[in-house]
């Protein structure tokens, strides 16, 4: 079990260097906040034209002509291990992703990219919710990769094998409910070691996080009540769950994109300052 403060400590123990593609004032502000708190050691950033903020000593600026260059060079800094994570600045998402996924010079691992949201439960610590942001309608095979990305990221933080719950609306398999069929397949895949993880599903969200709820339903499951990682049925459910945790349950959250050879930080205008900070902390802890 770990909390944001544990991730912060872990981050501070590393010399975390972030590579930024097309840095702008808003990404600068988030990085400055993280630097002030000891999370970021240094930043290497590409910049298109003049930057709109005063550049401190801990930021190395590389001037570039266009977005393509901005992304390409930022990616290369991670590829040659000068930086431990890459952050998107003012560059088109498609351009950014293209550079990351470049076959020759990118950060591919062979797995798909997936979004992980880390939310902090006051008693249970941090849980991962995936994928509420990138893969619209993942196939079964892609869901297996989403699980592996999440487990791999988790294991960079702590040694204990995380428990993965594949969530659906009900905990029984219903042929009319595709989410439950997929959950059953993923569970079996894990049992057959096709996925290297401890997986159980289908589980409704309450069964996944509450031992009491699971007991009520008399569910026999190694994961029920103790899920560390929640795999959502689709992007809609994932996005809704993540936002409900933040906006309606008051949980502190941060997110990264996993599946590349280093964590990818993609901050949105809608993220609060806390979320932006936590996303950088998460990336640092995983790097």
């Amino acid at each position, binding site marked *: 079990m770990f909390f944001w403060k544990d991730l912060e400590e872990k981050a501070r123990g590393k010399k975390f260097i972030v590579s930024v593609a097309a840095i702008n004032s808003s990404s600068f502000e988030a990085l400055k906040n993280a630097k002030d708190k000891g999370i970021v050691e240094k930043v290497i950033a590409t910049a298109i034209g003049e930057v709109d903020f005063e550049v401190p000593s801990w930021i190395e600026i590389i001037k570039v002509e266009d977005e393509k260059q901005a992304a390409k060079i930022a990616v290369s800094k991670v590829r040659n291990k000068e930086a431990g994570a890459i952050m998107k600045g003012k560059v088109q998402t498609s351009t950014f992703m293209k550079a990351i996924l470049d076959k020759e010079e990118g950060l591919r691992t062979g797995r798909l990219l997936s979004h992980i949201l880390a939310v902090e439960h006051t008693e249970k610590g941090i849980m991962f919710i995936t994928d509420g942001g990138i893969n619209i309608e993942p196939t079964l095979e892609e869901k297996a990769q989403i699980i592996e990305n999440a487990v791999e990221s988790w294991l960079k933080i702590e040694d204990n094998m995380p428990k993965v719950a594949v969530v659906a*609306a009900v905990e029984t398999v219903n042929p*009319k409910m595709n989410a439950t069929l997929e959950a059953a397949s993923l569970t079996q895949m894990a049992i057959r070691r096709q996925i290297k993880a401890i997986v159980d599903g289908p589980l409704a969200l309450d069964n996944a996080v509450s031992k009491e709820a699971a007991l009520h339903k008399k569910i026999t499951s190694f994961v029920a009540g103790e899920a560390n990682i929640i795999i*959502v049925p689709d992007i809609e459910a994932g996005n*809704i769950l993540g936002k*409900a*945790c933040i*906006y309606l*349950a008051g949980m502190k959250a941060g997110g990264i994109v996993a599946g590349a050879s280093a964590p990818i930080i993609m901050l949105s205008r*809608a993220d609060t300052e806390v979320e932006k900070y936590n996303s950088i902390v998460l990336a640092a802890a995983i790097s």
Partner: protein
Amino acid sequence: MKSFSEILQKLQDITEKEILAVAGAADEEVLKAVKKASDEGIAEAILVGDEEKIKEIAPSIGMELSKFEIVNEPDPRQACKKAVELVREGKANMLMKGLVQTADYLRAILDKEKGLRTNSLMSHIAFFELEHYPKLLGVTDAAMNIAPTLEEKVKIVQNAINAARAIGIEEPKVALLAAVETVNPKMPATLDAAAIAKMAARNQIKGGIVDGPLALDNAVSEEAAKHKKIESPVAGKADILVTPDIEAGNVLYKALGFLAKGKVGAVLVGAKVPVVLTSRADSDEAKHLSIALAAVMSKGMQNL
């Protein structure tokens, strides 16, 4: 409507209480809930079920049976039919499920000749009282319709608006949730949301203000909506959240209950009267608030 205490107060203030027909009342948990509703002036009840067993259970929970009409019917299927009949005859104005199978309960309600069907379909709506939201928040449909078609979603939205109005929310603001707030041809949830929002604008859905697609943060947080520069009469102020399907609905419902620790009451709407469908897993509070919700809806529906 800011809180459940407002609803409970409203019910306590009325003299003519709404009457629950309980199908399969010979169950300790259900009788406890009925007793509490009666004791606190929320609702009265007619108990349909095995009279002998009811009379056995009642004293053990301190329930004074003289206050309640009992219709003796030991067979659970018949009990469902009898409970529905009581509503049809005007002797009760809402239903509660006791020790009967959900399938039998719903079948009796949806019976073409002797049931309580309307033109609509039945859908599940839950109202939450949350620490982090300034008013009651409705969520639909977390439990009934698995993968509603566009037409069915329209009915789900209209049901939700009617329910919200019946509990006292004037012109409810309805947010059609999706993962993003822009229309993406690859994301059916966003296409459905756009169609439904337009239908409401054309008065094909009445009584509420409907907008979508909206991501959840846009729907409940004015700041988040401002950040995305969203122009919407619903953004930041939603009264009702409509999820694209049951998976998202259930995940949201459970998140608000178990992670946000919200107080919740839920009913099935779309039949002629509100239908309470609580399960053993629901807390005593959830059962109590569900009955209260049904009662205020029933009262409100009569006044609409």
